[in-house]
């Protein structure tokens, strides 16, 4: 999980988990079903237009509200490759790491990166560069214990290694 490339979808501040996956869809745990309703509260056509590897760039407090892990499942199975935000609500952040969806904090990305632009995230060198070369913004370093779980692809494979049940 060192570099990702994808097209940018921009969202604002306080995108809560009811917008990411409304409660009415939570009685079905099928990832494909959840993915078909990803971001429905914030953008009606997101789930039909998102492509594999696309990157969400958002403002402050992304993923606030309910602890529902289906928010991450919906985004991941819709094809989202990474989420970059000025800040994350803590449970969403943990859920994303645990399910192997890269989450990166960048103070400036939301202001400087344009919707629809293709960008390249270099997690190791902590930068986001627009494909047209026009913009480069910094990404905050990922805490070591968080990076370790993401490198395993999430908490399930990480714990399997720990328990020796692989």
């Amino acid at each position, binding site marked *: 999980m060192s570099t990702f490339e994808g097209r940018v979808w921009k969202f604002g501040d*306080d995108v*809560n988990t*009811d*917008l990411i996956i*409304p*409660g*009415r869809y*939570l*009685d*079905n*745990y099928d990832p494909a079903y959840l993915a078909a309703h990803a971001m*429905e*509260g914030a953008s009606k056509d997101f789930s039909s237009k998102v492509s594999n590897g696309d990157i969400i760039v958002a403002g*402050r*407090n992304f993923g*606030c*509200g*309910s*602890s*529902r*892990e*289906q928010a*991450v499942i919906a985004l991941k199975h819709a094809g989202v490759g990474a989420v970059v935000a000025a*800040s994350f*609500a*803590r*449970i969403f952040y*943990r*859920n994303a790491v*645990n*399910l192997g969806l890269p989450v990166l904090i960048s103070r400036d990305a939301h202001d400087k990166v344009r919707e629809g632009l293709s960008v390249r995230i270099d997690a190791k060198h902590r930068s986001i560069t627009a494909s047209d070369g026009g913009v480069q913004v910094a990404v905050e370093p990922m*805490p070591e*214990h968080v990076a370790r779980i993401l490198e395993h692809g*999430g*908490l*399930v494979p990480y*714990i*399997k290694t*720990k*328990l020796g*049940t*692989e």
Partner: protein
Amino acid sequence: MAGRTLSEKILARASGVADARAGDVVEATPDLVMSHENTFLVNKAFSEMGATRPWDPSKIVIVLDHRTPANSMQTASVHSKIRQIVKDMGISKFYDVGEGICHQLLVEEKLARPAQLILGSDSHTTTAGAVGAFGAGIGATEMAGVWATGKLWLKIPETIRISMSGHLGKAVFPKDIALMLAAKIGSSGADYKCVEFTGGFLFDISISGRMVLCNMAAEMGAKAAIVPADSTFSTWYPECGEGKTASCRSDPDAAFSSKMEIEVDPIPPMVSGPDKVEAAGDIAKFEGTPVSQAFIGSCTNGRLEDLIAASWVLKGRKVASGCRLLVAPASRQVLSDAMDMGAVRTIVAAGGTLLPPGCGPCLGAHGGVLGPGDVCISSSNRNFKGRMGSDEAEIYLASPATVASSAIEGRIADPRRYLDVDL
């Protein structure tokens, strides 16, 4: 060396280290873990991890509350599966459909106790702070990790200390104070932090009222919210009784990331909405907004004192035509007590509809889902667009008394017109 905050003490003890401070990452073993319908996801991840037996079934609490009784065949299957998991794993602290809301039961059943570390796969796990526990919400997969290993990494949070003084004004309730705090602190102002409530005002409010404050701290981003031990609950919890309070309180010289002083007396009845909890203000700014549904219930405000406050407003009055009043007690015990005290009769006589104990329509799954154009005033905790159903509906948050007075008028209405006594 500076003294320690209550969270620093609890998390150091839970992770078996002599000292740990805000910013340190620890591997902690919880005293209690709780999950609801998402136990289905917990168990799925638990199996995928290759684990078979949970580290300590006696510490696991499972409550069916979010979609109860089952709203669909799918939910019914999930409920059945969870009953099987409970049986297979020997989990005795299981609360089936109709017992109540998980956060309510943790306190009511005295499962949550002072100075405990409680992890719940629900964002409102902060509610347990009302009895001095450090309650934090986590996700389903990491709950599976806790089941498998008994451990979870946690960063010890900084603490915001909110010191509150004074007395509640006429027809003002802890919910109004919580909404005022949400407006002041904002949706992420307490992100990653613990909020500690202290000060003389706390002696004015019951454990139920303290649960409202701790519950709503989740809407400010808080990782946990906590009330240090005091005489209100130390008599019920001998572990923090006289001479033993040190482990249940922050040290006088503990380091807080910030301190706030709140004078409660001038706070009026508050309303918040639509769409953002922090969009809260004096009810005067919202009065007259037509409402088609009024909901009293949820882990925030479905307790006995909430139903009683609503019944005082509703006594001898009728819900306006064009408005539906729905009431979901937070637990079977609350329902039973509210029946004994006559509150249920009053609510039903006024035209209210009683729902079974549980989360009710708060999360938009069943029992009062909103359609396009509906406007709901609710005693719950979130007014996000689409939260209770249609994203073309609006949700406003308020205290149960304000919800009841609004139901009578069919528009947002000041409860001071209906509650003319100082409580």
